[in-house]
């Protein structure tokens, strides 16, 4: 699949590639990446990373299944059949039902909506905040940098789970408060990475050159620094999605997170934990596997993104 996709890209490129103009006073150096625009190069490199493509495929399928659960799921959200009770997997209920007679596959998909949405929102929010803070700290330097980095240090020594539990007790554990609390805890990682990258980039000559043409600091950060951080930021988003899903699951499993009747993979896990020792103990594996597969797929995609954006990467 990856090869044919890459070949399609290559084939679609070939006829449009402009030939080097002749009559050139200076010999044109062989262009290292041909005449492809940059996004094509990135895409082609990503598609060559097999696991990343598989990961992206799995994620897409999961997202479609979960967010389209209203149409795809065999039973409605929280549709109970109390007379049915707990059932083993059958043709009517592929993953069986729980003690309330709810179809477990449908539950998994609806719970996935919450888990995936929290993962994505936390990743985006913490990346935006962390990137902004890191870029400001790295670019401004001086006391602003000191203050910001000491604050991020502070976050390193705070036990995240304890803070999560306290904060969710205080503000209530709706999905949106969970997103806010997880983001508030999660922005420091990307802030450190972005700051470190900005520190090396800001001494590059092209940043100096941007100053020389009279560019303001804001313009330098937005137009010259951040585009050069695309790879780092994209990778961080994927890693943050994975860690946010796990953290949400952890808190829900411990009982601070998503509360029934709303469900997430975390609290499905927590409810299934009560079934250990019964014939339905297998239900523990279903949300667990969903979390595992999602996190692995997200990490593969992150890996592929890192390789694709690496400027030193070979064609």
């Amino acid at each position, binding site marked *: 699949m990856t090869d044919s996709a890459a070949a399609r890209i290559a084939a679609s490129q070939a006829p449009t590639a402009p030939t080097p103009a002749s009559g050139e006073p200076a010999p044109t150096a062989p262009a*290292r990446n041909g005449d492809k625009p940059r996004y094509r190069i990135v895409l082609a490199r990503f598609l060559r990373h097999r696991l990343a493509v598989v990961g992206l495929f799995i994620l897409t399928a999961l997202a479609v299944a979960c967010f389209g659960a209203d149409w795809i799921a065999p039973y409605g959200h929280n549709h109970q059949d109390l007379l049915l009770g707990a059932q083993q997997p059958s043709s009517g209920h592929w993953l069986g039902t729980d003690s309330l007679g709810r179809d477990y596959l449908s539950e998994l998909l609806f719970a996935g909506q919450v888990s995936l949405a929290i993962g994505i929102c936390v990743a985006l929010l913490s990346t935006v905040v962390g990137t902004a803070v890191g870029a400001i700290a790295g670019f401004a330097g001086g006391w602003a940098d000191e203050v910001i980095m000491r604050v991020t240090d502070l976050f390193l020594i705070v036990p995240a789970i304890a803070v999560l539990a306290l904060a969710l007790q205080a503000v209530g554990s709706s999905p949106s408060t969970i997103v806010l609390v997880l983001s508030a805890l999660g922005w420091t990682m990307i802030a450190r990475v972005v700051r470190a990258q900005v520190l090396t980039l800001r001494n590059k000559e092209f940043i*100096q*050159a941007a100053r020389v*043409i*009279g560019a303001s600091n804001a313009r330098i950060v937005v137009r010259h620094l951040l585009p*050069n951080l695309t790879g780092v930021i994209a990778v961080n988003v994927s890693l943050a999605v994975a860690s946010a899903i796990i953290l949400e699951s952890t808190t829900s499993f411990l009982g601070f997170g998503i509360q029934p009747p709303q469900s997430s993979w975390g609290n499905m896990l927590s409810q299934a934990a009560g079934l250990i020792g019964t014939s339905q103990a297998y239900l523990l594996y279903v949300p667990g596997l969903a979390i595992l597969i999602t996190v692995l797929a997200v990490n593969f995609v992150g890996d592929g993104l890192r390789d694709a954006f690496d400027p030193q990467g070979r064609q």
Partner: protein
Amino acid sequence: MITDPPPATSGAPAATPAPSADPAPVLSVRDLTVTYRTDSGPVVAVERLSFDVAPGETLGIVGESGSGKSAATMAIMGLLPRNARAEGSVRLHGRELLDLSDRELRPIRGRQIAVVFQDALAALNPMMTIGAQVAEAVGVHDASQDRRALRERTVDLLDLVGIASPRERVDRYPHELSGGMRQRVMIAMAIANEPALLIADEPTTALDVTVQAQVLDVIERVQDRTHTSVLLITHDLGVVAGIADRVMVMYCGRKLEESPVDPLFHQPAHPYTTGLLGSLPRIDRRAERLVQIPGRPPLPSERPTGCPFQPRCAHAVPEICGAPDTPLLAVDATHTTACVRHHEIGSVKR
């Protein structure tokens, strides 16, 4: 290499005096001192440097690495690193630049003073097309232009600096162009706003010899069109002989000699300049080995009082050359030297 230094006929009188500096110079630098604070104490990179650049003139600044030529330009642009301090006076059209804040300098940078860097690949943003970068150089100072006008202006600029088929190249990325092409893009960015002063910081050093000549040609052609003054920083005397009107020789952060080009090559009035000229390969003389200046430049902490060149100078007399704060001496109306013994040494044999 580009053009040979004019053949020296030693002892010949100076050529026709070059046009004297315009009464209203574009750039006027007085007693510029740049000091770096370092862990091992202050380091003086530029010491009491004074010079003028007249309108339309090309002033070459020659010096080896560490002679302070780059520190001086960065001081002019107000882009010294945090641990450096500039004192003295830098006036552009009579306006003092050293007192201005970063915000006040922004409209001047790129519009009145522009810089062409040595390594165009490093100085261009790898993630932006060259067209976007040239357009930015215009757009930063003029937000009124719409996208289409900006693109037309960009294509014109690329055409002006001799980039063939600019309409296609405008969407290329820096790594897709050759070194000479990239340097042309840098020049296009620099002249985008027709600055009064163009600082070219070793513009040809990273290029092949054949491409060097083309790039210098572009600078000269652009200068003819826009009447920009050029401050050409180089360690290559051949480049200076090719396009500069006047030359300033720097060593250890100080000006050792300043003169119109021809007299400097014919009758250098400082032993250091003589040494530099002597170390050039000449096609009109047969030589087995190139002559080199003995020793190496002193570390900033080990600079002697008086003439900084005296430890390496064959003509040095410690009692005379060690005297601190010797003024620059006039050789003639347009030619000055820091060598207090230049009359005794006479026109030094090359």
